[in-house]
């Protein structure tokens, strides 16, 4: 069984946010009004976290694209009282909307703040409903949602491979953000396949994981030269 993982090369990332919008388009993520946005209710499964450090003129700005880490040891699933969020057999942290009761325990438990609550039913002007992705359901009011690693693309890739009577190949299944990245800073594949690009990059001396010391075992691996927070650890 593959272990799907993402590698993000921070040395290449330009902070353009193409991944953010590719994700919104792919996953039918509704935009919220400016008033709601001011209350922190913007939904962004993929979000770029900017870090501005230092003082003029020695200022450093870093961008960290942050999808769901799809932790191997996810804190969010442990607190879900209704098994709406769980780690599936392929290592993806799934979110079953009809089961979700909206308690937001998982939202609080996630150290990466990847979980978003639907404060009301998503709203689009009638015209814009025409461009919703038919492969992805829209979410109802009162449930929590998050990045799925574009799980629906995996389903399609599997169906296609099955129809062509072959195994899934590297590149068959790629989330929308990775596909779109203009700088080519994102990679996706099977971490358990030692020959895959992600596995090779994960062995790089530049590799690290966010908040690694929490023991969440995230499957999003970052690459960066120079020092980072905390010790480097191999994925």
């Amino acid at each position: 069984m593959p272990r799907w993982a993402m590698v993000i090369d921070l040395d290449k990332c330009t902070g353009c946010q193409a991944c953010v919008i590719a994700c919104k388009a792919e996953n039918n993520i509704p935009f919220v009004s400016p008033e709601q946005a001011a209350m922190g209710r913007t939904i962004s499964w993929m979000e770029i976290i900017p870090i501005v450090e230092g003082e003029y003129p020695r200022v450093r700005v870093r961008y960290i694209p942050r999808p769901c880490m799809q932790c191997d040891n996810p804190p969010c699933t442990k607190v879900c009282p209704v098994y709406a969020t769980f780690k599936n057999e392929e290592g993806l942290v799934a979110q079953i909307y009809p089961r979700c009761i909206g308690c937001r325990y998982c939202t609080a438990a996630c150290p990466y703040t990847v979980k978003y609550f639907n404060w009301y039913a998503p709203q689009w002007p009638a015209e814009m409903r025409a461009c919703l992705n038919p492969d992805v359901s829209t979410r109802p009011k009162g449930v929590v949602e998050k990045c799925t690693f574009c799980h629906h693309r995996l389903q399609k890739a599997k169906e296609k491979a099955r129809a062509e009577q072959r195994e899934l190949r590297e590149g068959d299944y790629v989330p929308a953000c990775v596909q779109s990245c203009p700088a080519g800073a994102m990679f996706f594949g099977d971490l358990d396949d030692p020959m895959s690009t992600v596995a090779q990059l994960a062995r790089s001396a530049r590799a690290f994981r966010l908040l690694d010391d929490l023991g969440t075992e995230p499957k999003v691996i970052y690459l960066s030269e120079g020092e980072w927070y905390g010790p480097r650890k191999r994925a």
Partner: protein
Amino acid sequence: MDETTLKIERRDFLKLLAGAASGMMLSGYAFNKLAPVSQAYTDWPERIERWIPSVCLQCSGGCGLMARVVDGNVVKLEGNPLHPVNRGRLCPLGHAGLQLVYNPDRIKMPMKRVGRKGSTQWVSISWDEAIDLLAERLGELRERGQPHSLIVFDGRPTGLMGALWERFCHAFGTPNHLSADEPDGMRIAHRLMQGLDQLFGYDLENANYILSFGCQLLDGWRSPVQLARTYGYLRQERPGPRAKFVQIERRLSPTAARSDEWIPIRPGTEGALALGIAYVLIREELYDRQFVEQHTFGFDDWTDARGQRHKGFRRLVLETYRPENVSAITGVPVDTLIRIAKQFASTRPAVAIGSAEATLHSNGAFNALAIHALNALVGNIDLPGGVLIGEEIPFKRWPPIKSDAVAQEGRRRPRLDRAEADAPWLDALPLEALGERILSGTPYEVQAVFLYESNPVFSTPATARFAEALEHVPLVVSFASFMDESTAYADLILPDHTYLEKWQDGPAPPLSGVPTLGVTQPVIQPLYETKHTGDVILALARRMGGTLADAFPWADFKEVLMFSVRGCYEVRYGRVFSEPFEGAFVRQLQERGWWIPQFSSFEAFWKDLVKKGGWSGLFHEYGKWGHIFQTPSRKFEFYSQRLKAELEARAKRRGQPLEALLEELNITARGDDVFLPHYEPAQFAGDESKYPFHLNPFHVLVLNSGSSANLPWMQEIVGLHVHVKWDSWLEIHPETAQKLGIADGDWVWVESPYGKVRVRAKLYPGTMPEVVNIPIGLGHTASGRWASGRGVNPYALIGPAADRLGGLPARYATRVKISKA
């Protein structure tokens, strides 16, 4: 369960198998045919999914698209992997094309004004009626012998639509096909030093040192995806030593943040720094002697035909631009300057890139000359990793126009933006000077204005008075898709399709030096009663008849496109887009002079062109010196003979000595210095004692100069590094803010001699202490529900100042004061 739903036709079953095999149909289809579980299931439409290649026209970057169309609706835009500009990648604006097409604020049909001007009271009319009306009004202009009083403001003057407008103006009889595109002063340097009035490309992928003078390489410059791809490639993919990227800029922009070194510089002094670098190169003999000797003019002192001695660039620089002098002007420390200069000289190929930011100043043209001179000093013109002078796309030439007497008479009139004999400046006036001209009726009354992809009321300073100007013009026609600030003054609105509903050419901007043409094709049927502006031009010409109709032998714009791209089929180089390895192979053959025809007929070529998304010239031919240097000396001119000739001619026409003209133009240099790259002191609107800060309006990739402000996705990500959404902000240095008692998020007044705006302050350490920054693109008063009434437009603060030679608006040369609101 009724019988009909259970019955599976053999054909349907086969279709189903085919669908499963190719993965092209969605599961809804299968359920529809196989399992009539409930009425809801049987009502599911047969989902037909198609992927259609096209080209994104959100900006002028020219990225190839693959549009995913399900049941006639486009549901996703992705990059076309075959397109050499973006290779399957796409920027946030590209993705947000969906919110443009399906935007509820689109103009849905042609409309005619009924209320007073600017009252935004309209009635919808039919297209026939609209074109009749327009033909009648334009016919009157011609009858009155005033065809020249029609002005076309064209926001996309490159490519076939620009050519079609030009042709229309030619046949109609007006010289006024005017660009409403954002100017870039580097063009003036290219004209004066190389005799080429065009923007050049830069082969950044092969450069080892990139010295950017404010160029927003990663914030929307020219082709965002191509630049981001290049950046990623230079950082981690390219083998060998890593390229160094230095950003000289008055703000720590995202581009500066991603550079190896950010050098803050006082606004408007970029030219001085370039000359300081030139000093080190010359003084230490680090310049490319061979190139300078063989291919440049005016480096050393020289004697002209009349035996008169002239000063060379070397002497000027060594006498005037010692690092300590330059440091005092620019605020860049001497050691930084020397270090950068030595790196620039020793890390070949090194390339210096200018920008609108460095040239839209009172001294813009001279800054441009100084920056471009660096490329000649290191001999990096027309070399891999250097400045590339691109070839045009080989469109098939259109048949010549036979214009009638009225048109010929009209074309003889001066252009609205040209200086008359008695005005001092050299260049055509920038867009912002034209509002005033329209109002004052100089050099003639303007009777009609066409607005194509341009919104001058929003995108020029308020001091340009474009709103009043449009109110003043008897006939304003807008081809906009949205009710923007300028369209509000239109008498007639003839809405264009969005780019996902139409045929168009999508040329790649000059960057790689290789001519590349993408084809924009309709991926969905037009949603509303809109019409391709190209078709409108053709219909209008037909309706007006005579030589005007004869000039347009095409039925619709698609025919124009097909006629023109035949040129790409007929030239014996290039190829329809293909896989990178195939393209590399064919390029190698073609570089060695081999040519293998790919298609046996134009029809086959066209079919493949549309299927793959475009055509590329594949390679850049180096060493065409005769083409690259079209100057009097046929060399790169440090000493611009063209500038000298133009200035002297103007002085002569005005019957004054050159000295007096320079005085009037406020040029401080005298003698030979005038025609050499030199630093003219930057001038600013607003007295420093009263207005202590420089205002730096800056571009943000996702706002696209304001045209994407009505896309909610863009509003959600606009101010990433300062955590602002759906609003403008003022970037201010933390210590400056503290002195003024301003905390992060406070409302402040920003006031210039020309206006004031209220905006929230954000403390950003990437701000220079004497500069404040406001993004360009928000502060709409119209343009849709999400754009209107959000944030501020920094153009409300900017004055009408222009470059000394006249061609460039001084958009970055205004001072402001800040006070807590």
